[in-house]
């Protein structure tokens, strides 16, 4: 028996030198003797008393025995409630632990024996050797009573031993019923004493979370669920799903429906979503649910069961269909006073540059005009007016500006026409009216652009009349491949995530068409991937697989072919194991594309899961030194970002790992790293990532530099970040002679000022809990296209830049009243604080400022109402939030 802890504990009442004197002493006997001398009188009395109890407990007289044990218990209980050092009774009983233990063995079964077991169980807390789990052992032998009375420390220790015992027993396939009984007691105790995380942890260890539902009450369910949802991120599947299921059940039980809905959406469980609708009787709250669904960007049809009244149902469906998004966005824009259209020159701010900017060249450069087209589209996105495209339509013909559309060359005209869709984003009526006349153009590129524009304007908006399908369907079989691509891509954007069967029936035949050119096939695959994103649809998967197998050897070498596996991958976006069957099939592909396909599928399937094993797998792939011409490491690097973007911790680790890849990786890895960084910090300009990208933007390798420039735009997308804007401005003068790089710089500038700073590209929303699959899909397509800049974005397929529209969302909080009209209320906006596992009611934001809604929310910001007058119907103040008047509110005089 080791006496060290004893020694130091007793030191509290004694001079220091004692401790130093005794430390070297080996003989416990002499030590004990000595110690007795040092004890105060009171302690000495206690010690003797306890020794007496121990002696009596072994007495033959049962009455005496009982009295002794009960007294002993009394002594221990009164002292264990606080536990900063080993309590005195325990300390004094230490030497007798062995005696009592051996005596216990000799006792006959009786209540007394149980009583002694109780005491032994407590004593084992400090006595038993590591791993013996004697505390648990005697607990199980003891009386089944109130364990809480022995104090927190005891319960905590017991919980730990249960976890170990449980795993051991499961391995031995022994019964665990007695343990569960104990667990139930412990959980009840923890839940009562604000120790929800401990309760949850224990239940997770013994895989019996269902028990939790019984024990949560109104006061602690929020903390419990918060802990459940945030710990779910770090759990391996399928545990995470079961944990979230419990959280869902608890939220439902307490009618915290918005949170329940969030979890249902996280699980992508439509059954749960329906249940939320059916179980909530309040129409206004249902409207709030619809806003939440609309933000997630999934298509959802209400039925009779969810809303009985037809009129109400229509109103709800309208919210889900996002038809009011444009209105809300413009309300925000008007409030912030940014309605005035901006020209590309306003963004370039060439006057701030010293004489370096190219001298107002007298000749138009097609590339620079194209860049201006994109910048104009991104900056004025959703505002319905700009200074290039919409102006000329009014002064058609002889304006001094000339018609901007025709200042673009060939495919540039397609992008220019499509930019009208971007400018009228979400405003289907106006957008279609603007685009209509271009359908009648005899220039194929213009028509193609108009088709694409229809898709863009309808992105994320559903309409009963399905105008996009009606307008685009006729063009799918046109001879000209640019028109076909326009129509196909348009459909993909407009119906992303809808799993619309009509679209599938129209698009799948194209994949099988032997006469269709490669680019048409590639974009069809992407469009199908978008429409069926995360659906694991077998039929579509088959169609794409066959299309891939049909490609000739030379086709497989084309950069565009790589979009085919990506389309396939999108079908399994975030669906983890479901991809395995398809991944097996992909192993039979031509070796030119096999590895690439494998990486793409895997990265898509585990996107947004934070699965550390997959990150390691991808890192392993990047460690290989490749034969020339292999390209699969690009998607592997992107895969790291896609998987790790799930939560902040993993994200930071991924950023560090990517730094290593930069140092040791080869060119094809290095050029993908900036893109991965861009995805990890999208619309969230972290300073150290900004610095890394800024450094890479001057890299000697052009492709790395281009990727870094684009990524600078991505991390600053929609933020108007002055530092990035300055960096890009300087880059524009640095690269003034290199047309390709300058083009990238311009695009990045367009990204940074996207929507004049009102938009975000982050696919994560609702306090970074939910991941919008369509948004992520759009970004992934763009990034894959950026893996081969020269062939795609700098070539004739620059309109893939418009895929970013899928991720574009206003980064706003717009509060509306019960009639869904905007309502200005004061809100506090500040940096979100992680309050998981914190006791009490901690502050959820820090460094806040008070604004009046509508307000902009930056990455990592959280808002809370600064007035008691209203009650928000959603706990998360993001996007559209309905406010209800607080009936208990009284105006202060």
């Amino acid at each position, binding site marked *: 028996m080791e006496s060290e802890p004893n020694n130091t504990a007793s030191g509290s009442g004694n001079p220091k030198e004692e401790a130093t004197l005794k430390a070297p002493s080996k003989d416990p006997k002499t030590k004990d003797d000595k110690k007795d001398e040092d004890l105060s009188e009171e302690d000495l009395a206690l010690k003797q008393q306890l020794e007496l109890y121990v002696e009596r407990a072994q007495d033959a007289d049962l009455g005496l025995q009982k009295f002794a044990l009960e007294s002993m218990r009394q002594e221990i209980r009164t002292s264990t409630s606080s536990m900063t050092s080993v309590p005195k009774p325990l300390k004094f009983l230490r030497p007798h632990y062995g005696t009592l233990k051996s005596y216990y063995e000799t006792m006959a079964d009786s209540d007394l024996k149980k009583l002694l077991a109780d005491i032994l169980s407590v004593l084992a807390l400090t006595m038993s050797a590591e791993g013996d789990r004697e505390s648990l052992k005697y607990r199980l032998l003891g009386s089944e009573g109130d364990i809480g009375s022995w104090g927190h420390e005891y319960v905590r220790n017991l919980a730990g031993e249960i976890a170990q015992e449980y795993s051991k027993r499961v391995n031995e396939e022994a019964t665990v019923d007695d343990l569960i009984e104990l667990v139930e007691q412990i959980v009840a105790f923890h839940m009562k004493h604000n120790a929800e995380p401990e309760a949850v942890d224990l239940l997770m260890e013994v895989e019996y979370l269902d028990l939790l539902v019984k024990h949560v009450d109104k006061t602690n369910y929020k903390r419990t669920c918060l802990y459940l949802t945030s710990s779910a991120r770090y759990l391996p599947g399928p545990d995470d799903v079961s944990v979230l299921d419990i959280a869902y059940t608890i939220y439902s039980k307490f009618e915290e429906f918005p949170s329940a809905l969030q979890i249902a959406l996280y699980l992508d469980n439509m059954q749960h979503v329906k249940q939320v609708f059916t179980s909530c009787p309040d129409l206004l709250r249902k409207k709030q649910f619809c806003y939440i669904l609309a933000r997630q960007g999934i298509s959802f049809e209400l039925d009779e069961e969810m809303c009985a009244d037809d009129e109400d149902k229509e109103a709800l469906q309208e919210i889900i269909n996002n038809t009011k998004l444009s209105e809300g966005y413009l309300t925000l824009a008007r409030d912030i006073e940014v309605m005035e259209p901006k020209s590309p020159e306003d963004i370039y701010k060439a006057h701030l540059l010293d004489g370096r900017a190219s001298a107002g060249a007298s000749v138009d450069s097609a590339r620079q005009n194209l860049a201006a087209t994109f910048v104009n589209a991104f900056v004025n996105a959703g505002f319905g007016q700009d200074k290039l495209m919409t102006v000329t*339509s009014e002064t058609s013909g002889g304006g001094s500006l000339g018609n901007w559309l025709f200042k673009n060359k060939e495919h540039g005209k397609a992008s220019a026409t499509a930019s009208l869709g971007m400018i009228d984003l979400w405003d289907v009526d106006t957008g279609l009216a603007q685009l209509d*006349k271009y359908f009648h153009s005899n220039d194929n590129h213009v028509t193609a652009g108009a088709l694409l524009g229809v898709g863009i304007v309808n992105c994320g908006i559903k309409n009963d009349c399905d105008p996009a399908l009606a307008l685009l369907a*006729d063009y799918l079989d046109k001879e000209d491949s640019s028109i076909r691509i326009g129509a196909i891509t348009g459909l993909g954007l407009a119906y992303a995530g809808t799993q619309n069967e009509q679209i599938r029936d129209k698009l799948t035949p194209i994949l099988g068409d032997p006469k269709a050119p490669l680019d048409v096939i590639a974009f069809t695959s992407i469009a199908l991937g978008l429409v069926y994103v995360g659906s694991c649809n077998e039929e579509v998967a088959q169609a794409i697989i066959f299309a891939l197998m049909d490609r000739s050897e030379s086709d497989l070498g084309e950069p565009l072919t790589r979009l085919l596996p990506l389309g396939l991958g999108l079908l399994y976006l975030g669906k983890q194991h479901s991809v395995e069957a398809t991944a097996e099939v992909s192993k039979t592909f031509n070796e030119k594309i096999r590895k690439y396909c494998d990486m793409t599928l895997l990265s898509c399937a585990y996107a947004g899961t934070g699965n550390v094993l997959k990150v390691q797998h991808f890192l392993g792939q990047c460690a290989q030194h490749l034969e020339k011409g292999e390209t699969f490491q690009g998607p592997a690097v992107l895969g790291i970002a896609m998987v790790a973007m799930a939560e902040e911790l993993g994200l930071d680790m991924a950023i560090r790992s990517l730094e290593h890849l930069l140092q040791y990786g080869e060119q094809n890895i290095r050029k993908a790293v900036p893109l991965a960084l861009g995805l990890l910090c999208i619309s969230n300009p972290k300073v150290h990532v900004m610095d890394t990208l800024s450094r890479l933007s001057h890299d000697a390798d052009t492709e790395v530099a281009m990727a870094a420039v684009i990524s600078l735009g991505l991390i600053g997308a929609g933020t108007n970040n002055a530092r990035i804007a300055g960096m890009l401005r300087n880059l524009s003068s640095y690269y003034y002679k290199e047309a390709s790089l300058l083009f990238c710089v311009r695009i990045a500038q367009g990204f940074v000022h996207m929507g004049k700073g009102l938009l975000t590209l982050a696919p994560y929303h609702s306090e970074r809990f939910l991941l919008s699959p369509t948004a992520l899909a759009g970004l992934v397509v763009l990034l894959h296209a950026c893996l081969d800049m020269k062939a795609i974005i700098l070539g004739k397929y620059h309109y893939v830049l418009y895929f970013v529209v899928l991720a574009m969302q206003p980064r706003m909080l717009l509060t509306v009243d019960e009639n869904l009209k905007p309502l200005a209320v004061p809100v506090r906006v500040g940096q979100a604080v992680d309050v998981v596992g914190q006791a009490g009611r901690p502050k959820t934001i820090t460094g806040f400022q008070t604004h009046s809604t509508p307000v902009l929310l930056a990455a990592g910001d959280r808002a809370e109402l600064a007035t008691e007058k209203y009650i928000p119907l959603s706990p998360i103040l993001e996007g559209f939030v309905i406010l209800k008047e607080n009936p208990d509110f009284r105006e202060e005089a």
Partner: protein
Amino acid sequence: MPTVSVKWQKELYPAVEIDTTQSPYVFKCQLYDLTGVPPERQKIMVKGGILKDDSDWSKLGLKEGQKLMMVGTADVIAKAPEKGPVFMEDLPEEEQVVAVGHSAGLFNLGNTCYMNSTMQCLHSVPELKSALTEYPQSGRSNDLDQSSHLLTVATRDLFNELDKNVKPVAPMQFWMVLRKKYPQFGQLHNGSFMQQDAEECWTQILYTLSQALRSPSTSANLDTVKELFGIDLVSRVHCAESGEESMETETVYSLKCHISHEVNHLHEGLKHGLKSELEKASPSLGRSAVYLKDSRINGLPKYLTIQFVRFFWKRESNQKAKILRKVDYPLELDIFDLCSDDLRKNLEAPRQMLRDEDGRKAGLKLKQKNTSSVDSDVKMSDAEGPSTGSGESSKATLGEAVASDKNVQLTGVYDLVAVLTHKGRSADSGHYVAWVKQENGKWIQFDDDNPIPQREEDITKLSGGGDWHMAYICMYKARTIPM
């Protein structure tokens, strides 16, 4: 007959009756009345499909009160302009130059930066370029030697090359011819060509060109180079000892800016440079005596070349050492006070006009004030005029004749157009770079094959006083005023 509501753009037409017995075309005409969109331009969306003119109403399954959506505008279809824009990417390379905004750089052929920078500076003189284009390929005049002729042709070709290209040019031919004409530039050191003094190169090339571009047809003194760069000086040579005084005239191609301890500014250096002492035999004293030579400018060139005398022969180290002293120079140089009295008188009228011009530019508000101040200026110079006015009238008329030829008047005000800088500690080492103002007003630093745009304010920072590039030769262009 079902009634439907039709949505068109932002408007909603609530109760439109459909006569299901008629073809949809009739319905479209109904909508035409409402919206003004011609039927052939109407696209009516019915459940994910477009209503065709010959569709069967019964198959569409219209419901009472159903919402239809119509897309269509009466707008004119945007027509491509008849003449599409020309894109830079489509232009042949020589035309892209215009768009780039500056001409090409010159490759360094091994310590030839002195030659490259000289050529870049001279290349910025359009008059020289046009004179060279007129230079005949074969018909050289008799008094010109073969190598000078070849050098002139090579210069012309090189200038053409520079204008035509965006990418850097290798001046091989020119380099060969230059070495042939002036073998000193072909000096080898350790097997490679030696760095040379840019000023020497500049002078030699200009000399050759002045020989070659002497127009044979007209009178002998019409010499293009002289007209462009020649500065007429009139000097009073005075001997303090004997009191002898004589006048001399000469033509130089550049003014020297002497750098001494007192010189901080170009103007002071120029004044120094115009005064010199020389020792020559005095006829009255019968021995050599010290004469003071005090020169003034009597005829202005279109391009004023100024050389900073930064190098001097340091005997102990046996090399051309460099004076690093900072000498400021302005972007706009007025050399009125260096002119002779005759020239001043001739310059007064154009200068007055120039001031008026500036005043007008400054804005209407200031006009009143300006005219009054200008008036007093005139009076002052008027009063000054007669007291100092004396000298050879023939010279003055000559200067006037040259200027009036082109109906423009020189004003004595010059704008900086090119700077040739040197970086390093001695003339035969270091690096020469040309900084040239382009026609569009932008400055370009021609660092051999690499043209880099620069800010105007950085150009004046090349004034020395450190180890940065410092001005060695400055070229100013005359500001003229049409008469």
